[in-house]
């Protein structure tokens, strides 16, 4: 009897031991005083003790009495209730098992989702006073268009002119080729201004962070993970050098594992000085918006005040630099918002979903308890007759409910721990801090609160309804007609609410599933199957001149194409549909923009590609020609544009042969359109809108980084080894990074919606199952209760089909009532899904209709099965 042992231990935690001890101590003191007194009066010690004991009389009774008065009576009855409750749970193992499992599902789902919410939303960011950290973005004023990064000169002006911040730092993320001392490797690093770590409020775990003096030199701080991986956690690493892009950087510190801003993929932080080493002046262009800004508010300053001041500064810069800063605004957004803002809705939707699952669990258990209460009527009647007050009986029932809830809660925690370990294996996509999800004290506290609350929720109705039955029960032989009908109505209400809640959850899950399918069906504009992608970046120290860059690429492409299994080799500066390196404004010669706001919208993805790019990716050529090897640095500049550009800028004239330019006033580039291809999604994943694209031949627009796209005849992964050896044979110092199959790239671009859809679908399935169990229970109970009525009807000549129709009709009425309420509730609830939906409206009639039909059908089936049992009723037995 593990339960008894468990409860005995629980009792030990209570105060009863203390009370007993205190009373014993008190009486012992008295006894000793009496003995001393007696001895003083001349008794022998023995005699003195005997006299003292005699004067106490029945010591045990005194103790018992004291114990009762001192609160023990209360403890004793609680203990009694607990023991009694435990016994009655053990006596009905099937009931207990079903109830505990149901609750474990509900509580487990809540625990698991809350642990995610806790890690993702609730835990403060791991920086000093994180609520004061703000991110600052450039915006385009006229369109109120989204935030983008800032140029270094603008950042410096902001920092100098603002008064509301304690500090302001800039950072940009770059790829670096790490060479020397082991395999060449491409790593991601953040280029940060010297006060970056101060603003974040973090210190190095080893060595130091940057100081203002570091600005002129090349210094680097390592992340904990990188330090462990590349340097084997060597504490002597401080002072050593790291060769990045051919330049030596001195290691000054290592951060703790907790610090991973601005992202986990960033393995080191380097000083800003390097910004100027690659392309001179580029970093200092006011048009080069490639830095993010983070700032710490002064004490007592709100983000709103900061925004006001930054607005003034932006206007001032606009007047001062009309060429570059016209229309540029500033947006101050708390870092916390920046990190979690776009997952909050999804998290809240999941929390809502598990809350519904828990409510349905509670309704189911309440139903079970109500059914059981009827069979226990006599038991309670007898206890009442023996002097148990109504409150005592209610307390007894509530104690049992709490006991059930606690068992369910314990099961739920186990389920949640298991669930979280499975969740951790899933790809969460861009959900921040997902790797930190765990069941900690906060989560357990939440679970305990939820457990107790649900114990009360599902226990209160059965406990309160227990009273009406008392007087009736003893008179009647146990069928308790009045009480039963009352209980039956309550149970019907519970089932109707279960169905309504399940419908809301299923409709939401259905909408999410439909959006997800829509998302998967989106044509990215190219053929992603059997495509191997990888990134190569040429070390800038070695490849400074564009001729050399073009040559080495050409050699790599040509040799790769000869490898067995390779059908075609494309290369470009973007990785559709998730990433493109460069976006730029452009102008079309002969096209007059209708308004200045349109002028600001003329932004296109600019890609350098090799001649085989379109063929390899399967992007159809619509007009003109693709590039060839003749489009080299000596030939006239040419471009291929996307179809939607033709529609918009060449509605009534020939696009081929026309000219366009891009790159802004600082670095204008002019070229002639020679071809048109269909549209491709380049950034933002499948759900994003198509954007204009301008393609340039790589030999006319060489860059040091490109994505290779290798079209394979069969399994693309089989080509990894040969691709590696080809690149190494061309130049052993060129690292390969981000080797991926394109199908996986697309797959992980929809990882977040998939995670949410999977979880909602799971919870929807649980809700459906529980609701079905609920309606099944109510109908089978009704059949059992109505046996007499059915017997009479059949004796009077009712046909079996009539009886069946009567019982199934009862279930159908409950189901329809639940569905009707649920549909109304869903109209309100699904609107909250908002942005999570893609290509499906929140009131999608197909989803609503489908789910309502499904739920009604399943509910009728669930009542049909027990209803058939009514046909087996033997009129003679029933009437006896």
């Amino acid at each position, binding site marked *: 009897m593990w339960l008894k042992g468990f409860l005995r231990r629980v009792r030990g935690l209570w105060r009863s031991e203390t009370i007993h001890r205190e009373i014993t*101590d008190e*009486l012992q003191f008295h006894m000793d005083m*009496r003995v001393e007194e007696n001895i003083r009066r001349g008794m022998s010690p023995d005699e003195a003790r005997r006299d003292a004991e005699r*004067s106490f*009389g029945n010591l045990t009774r*005194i103790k018992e*009495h004291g114990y009762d*008065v*001192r609160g023990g009576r209360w403890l004793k009855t609680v203990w009694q209730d607990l023991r009694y409750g435990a016994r009655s749970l053990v006596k009905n193992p099937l009931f207990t098992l079903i109830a505990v499992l149901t609750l474990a599902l509900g509580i487990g789902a809540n625990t698991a989702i809350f642990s995610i919410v806790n890690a993702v939303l609730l835990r403060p960011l791991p920086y000093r006073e994180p609520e004061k950290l703000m991110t600052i973005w450039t915006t385009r004023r006229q369109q109120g268009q989204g935030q983008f990064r800032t140029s270094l000169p603008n950042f410096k002006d902001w920092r100098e002119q603002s008064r509301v911040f304690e500090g302001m730092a800039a950072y940009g993320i770059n790829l670096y080729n790490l060479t020397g001392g082991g395999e060449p490797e491409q790593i991601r690093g953040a280029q940060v201004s010297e006060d970056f770590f101060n603003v974040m409020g973090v210190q190095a775990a080893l060595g130091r962070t940057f100081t203002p003096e570091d600005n002129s030199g090349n210094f680097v701080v390592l992340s904990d993970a990188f330090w462990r991986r590349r340097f084997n956690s060597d504490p002597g690493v401080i002072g050593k050098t790291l060769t990045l892009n051919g330049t030596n950087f001195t290691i000054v510190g290592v951060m703790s594992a907790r610090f991973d801003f601005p992202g986990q993929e960033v393995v080191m932080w380097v000083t800003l000085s390097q910004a100027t080493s690659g392309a001179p002046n580029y970093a200092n262009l006011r048009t080069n918006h490639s830095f993010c800004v983070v700032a710490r508010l002064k004490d007592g300053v709100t983000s709103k005040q900061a925004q006001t001041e930054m607005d003034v500064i932006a206007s001032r810069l606009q007047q001062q630099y009309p060429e570059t800063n016209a229309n540029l605004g500033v947006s101050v957004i708390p870092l916390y918002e920046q990190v979690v803002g776009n997952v909050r809705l999804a998290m809240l939707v999941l929390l809502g979903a598990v809350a519904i699952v828990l409510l349905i669990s509670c309704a189911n258990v309440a139903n079970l308890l109500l059914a059981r209460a009827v069979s226990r009527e006599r038991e309670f009647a007898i206890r009442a007759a023996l002097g148990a007050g109504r409150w005592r009986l209610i307390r007894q029932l509530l104690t049992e409910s709490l006991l059930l809830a606690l068992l369910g809660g314990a099961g739920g925690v186990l389920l949640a721990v298991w669930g979280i370990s499975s969740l951790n294996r899933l790809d969460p996509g861009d959900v921040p801090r997902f790797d930190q999800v765990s069941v900690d004290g906060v989560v357990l506290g939440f679970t305990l609160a939820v457990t107790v609350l649900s114990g009360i929720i599902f226990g209160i109705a059965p406990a309160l309804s227990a009273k009406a039955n008392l007087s009736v029960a003893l008179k009647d032989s146990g069928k308790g007609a009045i009480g039963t009908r009352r209980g039956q109505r309550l149970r019907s209400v519970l089932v109707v609410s279960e169905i309504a809640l399940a419908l809301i959850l299923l409709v939401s899950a259905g909408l999410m599933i439909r959006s997800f399918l829509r998302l998967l069906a989106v044509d990215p504009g190219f053929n992603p199957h059997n495509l191997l992608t990888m990134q190569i970046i040429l070390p800038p120290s070695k490849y400074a001149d564009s001729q050399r860059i073009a040559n080495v690429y050409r050699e790599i492409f040509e040799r790769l194409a000869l490898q067995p299994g390779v059908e075609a080799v494309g290369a470009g500066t973007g990785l559709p549909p998730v990433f493109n390196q460069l976006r730029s404004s452009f102008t079309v010669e002969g096209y007059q923009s209708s308004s200045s706001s349109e002028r600001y919208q003329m932004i296109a993805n600019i890609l350098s590609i090799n001649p085989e790019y379109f063929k390899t990716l399967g992007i159809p050529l619509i007009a003109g020609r693709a590039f060839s090897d003749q489009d080299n640095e000596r030939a006239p500049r040419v471009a291929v544009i996307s179809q939607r550009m033709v529609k918009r800028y060449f509605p009534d004239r020939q696009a081929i042969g026309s000219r366009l330019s891009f790159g802004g006033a600082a670095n204008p580039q002019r070229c002639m359109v020679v071809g048109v291809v269909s549209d491709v999604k380049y950034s933002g994943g499948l759900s994003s809108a198509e954007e204009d694209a301008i393609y340039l031949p790589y030999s006319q627009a060489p860059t040091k980084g490109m994505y290779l796209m290798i079209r394979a005849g069969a399994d693309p992964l089989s080509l990894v080894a040969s691709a590696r050896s080809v690149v190494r044979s061309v130049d052993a110092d060129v690292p390969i990074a981000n080797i991926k199959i394109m199908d996986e790239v697309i797959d992980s671009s929809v990882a977040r919606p998939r995670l949410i859809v999977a979880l909602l679908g799971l919870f929807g399935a649980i809700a459906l199952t529980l609701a079905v169990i609920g309606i099944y229970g109510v109908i089978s109970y009704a059949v059992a209760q109505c046996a007499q009525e059915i017997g009479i009807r059949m004796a009077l000549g009712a046909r079996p089909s009539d009886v069946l129709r009567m019982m199934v009709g009862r279930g159908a009425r409950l189901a329809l009532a639940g569905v009707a309420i649920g549909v109304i509730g869903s109209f309100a609830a699904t609107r909250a899904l908002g942005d999570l939906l893609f290509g499906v409206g929140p009131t999608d009639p197909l989803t609503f209709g489908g789910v309502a039909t499904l739920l009604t059908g399943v509910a009728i089936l669930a009542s049909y099965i027990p209803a058939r049992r009514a046909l087996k009723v033997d009129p003679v037995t029933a009437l006896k």
Partner: protein
Amino acid sequence: MTSKQKADLLQGTLDLLILKALSLGPMHGYGVGQRIMQMAEEMLKIEEGSLYPALYRLEDKEWIKSEWGISENNRRARFYKLTPAGRKQLNIEEENWQRFAFAIGKVLGAA
């Protein structure tokens, strides 16, 4: 008179005596017994068997409250103390008792 009725009568009286004894200041159980005995000039002896149940009962009624303290011979002892409610109760019971004793006296004197 059954023993139960006798107990009730004694109980009321004993409660009064305890409250009175504690009105002189906090005291532990043993001291309460001693104090009553002294006040009655050794004419009354309180049995421990009735003293402690009475103390617990009075505490349950919140007329007295108890806490651990140090006795005059430096030992840990449970000290009882009159609560404001207890003081009020003492006044009521004292009055009742006076009236009762006065009435009894009248009856006995008349005979």
